[in-house]
């Protein structure tokens, strides 16, 4: 047996069934410490964009719902906004409000889902179950409005397909009141906990300068102090009528560290912000139509006459989501490109993983809110000796749990 040589190279990923965006991360480690990290995106190509190029916008808008399992409205809203700009379609005001309400409910459920997963990665499964139980409230509200829990299919080109009727207001208000009651508890459980404090403070630090230089988006950018929020910067849907201010970690503490803890702070307080936005939307809901054109044939006729290109943006729970669409006097678009928000954030992984411990990888990778199931299969390859050790997700999670236990002693 040859002598062990440092550094070791640890490839993480790339495929896990639960992963939205499979990614391959390669870490160079010396002992427990990560010296450098690199990653390769684009491991799973489903060809949705290619499928879109043989379908009309009314078909694509429901195809976009299936890009991501958690952002059920994000992609369809961004795509619909792009097509509406090309075809010069004005969305009725009421539809804009329904879109905003659904988008904010999605933010609540997505952030709670993330908070639960983050707790799970720290070995704090009680909090994970609690967060997911609380999340059910938002899922029920979405189910009530759209009919289904996960794939809402509520967006149509030029409006929404389902209206929020008078009798639905009461259950939605009750759900929001419930969240308001729970918010204090959630804040205490996540932000005052000794375990979360000791594991997340200082882990995966991203400075303001680097966050700007790497063009991060969403809560990852805001946790580092960038005031980037599409809802405030380029208002769309009903956000123009609302006073949306980007949530920065300063809402809870005085300084901005840009670490994992700050990302939890931003997400927890964005839940409170979303509750307020929905309440305001429900109070000021305009009356009127919910679709620019009731008949699908009319929408398709407008698409047939459309020529040009446009970018549709939406502030997803994870950050800015971008859809580029080009149309040329045909029902079928000639180009369609999707840039999901996680893609922008992934690039900071090499940066924030540097200097971290192997046991901290799960929480740091998770902190920017991709699916952290990339830690599913880790192979430690000793390049010099040609030996390979396979770390399963369980082992890596166990390392993380053990670190928590060490800290608690």
């Amino acid at each position: 047996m040859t002598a062990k040589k440092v550094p070791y190279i640890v490839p993480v990923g790339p495929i896990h069934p639960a992963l939205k965006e499979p990614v391959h991360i390669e870490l160079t480690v010396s002992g427990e410490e990560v010296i450098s990290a690199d990653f390769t995106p684009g491991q799973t190509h489903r060809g949705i964009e290619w499928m879109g190029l043989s379908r009309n916008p009314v078909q694509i808008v429901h195809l976009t719902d299936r890009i991501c399992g958690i952002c059920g409205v994000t992609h369809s809203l961004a795509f619909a906004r792009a097509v509406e700009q090309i075809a010069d379609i004005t969305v009725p005001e009421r539809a804009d409000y329904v879109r905003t309400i659904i988008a904010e409910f999605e933010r609540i459920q997505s952030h709670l889902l993330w908070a639960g997963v983050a707790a799970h990665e720290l070995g704090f499964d009680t909090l994970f179950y609690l967060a997911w139980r609380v999340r059910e409230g938002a899922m029920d509200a979405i189910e009530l409005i759209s009919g289904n829990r996960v794939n809402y299919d509520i967006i149509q080109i030029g409006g929404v397909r389902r209206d929020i009727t008078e009798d639905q207001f009461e259950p939605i208000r009750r759900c929001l009141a419930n969240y308001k009651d729970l918010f204090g508890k959630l804040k205490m459980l996540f932000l005052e906990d000794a375990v979360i404090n000791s594991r997340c403070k200082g882990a995966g630090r991203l400075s303001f300068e680097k966050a700007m230089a790497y063009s991060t988006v969403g809560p990852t950018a805001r946790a580092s102090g960038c005031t980037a929020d599409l809802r405030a910067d380029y208002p769309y849907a009903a956000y123009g009528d609302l006073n949306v201010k980007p949530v920065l970690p300063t809402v809870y503490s005085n300084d901005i560290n840009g670490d994992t803890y700050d990302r939890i702070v931003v997400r927890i307080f964005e839940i409170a912000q979303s509750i307020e936005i929905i309440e305001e939307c429900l109070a000021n809901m305009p009356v009127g139509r919910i679709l620019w054109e009731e008949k699908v044939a009319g929408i398709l006729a407008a698409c047939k006459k459309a020529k040009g290109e446009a970018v549709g943006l939406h502030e997803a729970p994870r950050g800015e989501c971008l859809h580029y669409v080009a149309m040329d006097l045909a029902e079928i678009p000639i180009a369609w490109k999707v840039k999901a928000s996680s893609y922008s954030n992934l690039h900071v992984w090499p940066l924030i993983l540097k200097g971290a411990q192997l046991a901290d990888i799960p929480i740091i990778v998770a902190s920017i809110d991709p699916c952290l199931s990339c830690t599913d299969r880790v192979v430690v390859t000793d390049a010099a000796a040609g030996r390979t050790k396979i770390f399963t997700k369980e082992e890596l999670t166990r390392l993380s749990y053990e670190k928590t236990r060490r800290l608690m002693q």
Partner: protein
Amino acid sequence: MAKLPMFREILGQSVKKPVTNLFPTIRMPKSITRFFRSVTEGKAEIVPPVATPPVFRGKIVYDRTACNGCGLCLKVCPTHAIEQVAYPPMTVTVTDEKGNVTEKLKTEKRIRIYIASCVFCGQCSDICTKGAVAMGNEFLLATEDRFAEEQIAE
């Protein structure tokens, strides 16, 4: 317990009823297959799943008699799960106003829906002018054979 606020929560929850609907049974049976067999025999009962909301989009219910084969649903289906089927010409007897009975050859156009490809967006039921396609309430659709009889609506 200022630093571990979860403790109080756990103590409180230990006396509360679980919020989860215990579907399909309250306790794990020794054998799932035997349990389901006894359910079909009527000896055991299933805890019903949570009720679906009124606007739920489940397995498509297709009414063949109402359909006129116009093919509008083909135009909006995102997954191309619907195909148009032309049934072989058959002889129909037509009686006109004068009472003359004539025999004519008629081709029937209908649709066929592959449930396995369906994404349950409900556009086909929204666009159908005859009300021939509707979104049902059924959601337990797991199958091994995507071309099984219950996986194709025609």
